[in-house]
């Protein structure tokens, strides 16, 4: 450390603490989309991408315009949205309810953990014929499919979230003689809310996937029916127009949950 004689040149300490701290960059996502679309447009125009591989984005846009002008867009969108809303609402509320019960009661948990584990990996699409037999070919079977698909991930997320609620807060509630119901309502549920909401992000995306599956049978109108019809005709422009609608739906749902998170979980950050 202390060499006598020649003093070495001072060296600046090298900074090595960077990275591993993601920051929000709002516009990069938009730029990625725009670049991809421009590449696709340019590629299909110059013939470098054959029109059989990928439809031209401007054609998809034109198809979208026709859909809007003919009024078919709403005709497809309204039944799909109502199926999505009703199905997902049933599935999510049952999922949250059962998940909370599983988190609170050890018998319910012991009984349903294996059951949920058995149900989770079943591709719900495979059960569509069963639901048609049980609930008929009308709307009820579509609600059931979407509800069932959203139920399982919601249950798993909720029960994990309830499990993670700080036990010392529950102890505190008991020490102040709060009633059981008060403890659940004022301590357990708000404490589990972050986990429940991040679970909802996943289950609502799954609900959109299942919407297309649900409209495979007995649906005249609906985004899913529209996509499936275009697919069987190999009409790529319409297929893409439908897919874009689903993507936009997904982005909107995720933004909505983000908004809810920011309001309900303001106490975190």
């Amino acid at each position, binding site marked *: 450390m202390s060499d006598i004689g020649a003093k070495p040149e001072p060296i600046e300490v090298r900074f090595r603490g960077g990275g591993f701290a993601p920051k929000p960059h709002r516009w990069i996502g938009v730029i990625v989309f725009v670049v991809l679309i421009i590449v696709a447009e340019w590629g299909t125009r110059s013939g470098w991408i054959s029109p059989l591989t990928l439809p031209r984005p401007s054609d998809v846009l034109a198809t979208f315009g026709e859909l809007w002008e003919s009024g078919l867009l709403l005709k497809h969108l309204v039944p799909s949205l109502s199926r999505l809303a009703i199905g997902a609402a049933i599935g999510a509320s049952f999922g949250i309810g059962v998940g909370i019960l599983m988190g609170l009661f050890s018998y319910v948990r012991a009984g349903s953990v294996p059951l949920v584990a058995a149900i989770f990996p079943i591709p719900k699409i495979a059960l569509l014929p069963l639901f048609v037999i049980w609930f008929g070919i009308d709307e009820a079977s579509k609600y059931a499919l979407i509800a069932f698909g959203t139920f399982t991930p919601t249950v798993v997320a909720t029960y994990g979230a309830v499990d993670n609620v700080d036990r010392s807060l529950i102890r505190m509630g008991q*020490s102040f003689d709060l009633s059981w119901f*008060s403890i659940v309502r004022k301590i357990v549920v708000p404490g589990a809310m972050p986990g429940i909401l991040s679970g909802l992000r996943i289950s609502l995306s799954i609900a959109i996937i299942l919407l297309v599956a649900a409209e495979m049978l007995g649906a005249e109108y609906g985004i899913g029916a529209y996509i499936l019809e275009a697919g069987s005709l190999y009409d790529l422009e319409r297929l893409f127009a439908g897919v874009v609608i689903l993507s936009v739906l997904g982005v909107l749902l995720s933004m909505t949950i983000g908004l809810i998170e920011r309001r309900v979980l303001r106490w975190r950050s």
Partner: protein
Amino acid sequence: MDIRLDAISHSYGDTEVLRDISLDIPTGRVVCLVGPSGCGKSTLLRLIGGLERATKGHILQLGTPPEGCLNPLTYVFQDFALLPWRSVWGNISLVLEDHGIKGAHANAIIADVLARTRLSDFSHALPRQLSGGMKQRVAIARALAVKPAVMLMDEPLSALDSQTRELLMDDLVSLWTRQPFTAVYVTHNLAEAVRLGHRIVVLSRRPGEIRDIVEIDRPLEGRGHGDRALEDTQRHLWDLMRDEARAADEELLDV
């Protein structure tokens, strides 16, 4: 209202944590429980407040709690145990809501306890905005709101830095001086014990037994820094505890 511990023993499975503890907690006095880590002092506090059931022995309330007392045995926890999604006001209101106290009556109680803990300006702040010392003052305000007969304080200052600890000790002394309360105060810090305790109960290492009970007659507000008599008491307590603490430190936890 006094509390009497009658031959309390407690074990977790085969591990005996407390053995034959008999103790009186008289009204209006602060009883400190000190002892080496793992001697069962926090367990004893949970037994007193009914959060755990003793394997043997009884915990008795002598007399009735004072008028207007909502929750006779009220805890102040080491980790504060505040709901992070409720404001200071909401955290105190939480413990009143279940007693049907709402509106103007609740506002009056909350304003009073916030004033007593010097928190009136922070009633709308969220716990994450508060310093550790302020969080613990909120927890103390919450405990005062239910007008407890006995406060059960589980190392209330141990999560705080030493300066904050000094300030809060002053706060506790002035709270007690203005309106004496009964408390069982668990700590591993002997300086806190001689500063705040009227009666100091020294527990041995596991299984915890009462090794000695030291009474300090000097009034709380008269106890300052550099007080010879208090220092002697503290040294005496440390002499009692040193070997126990060393032995406890060298024990394996899961034997």
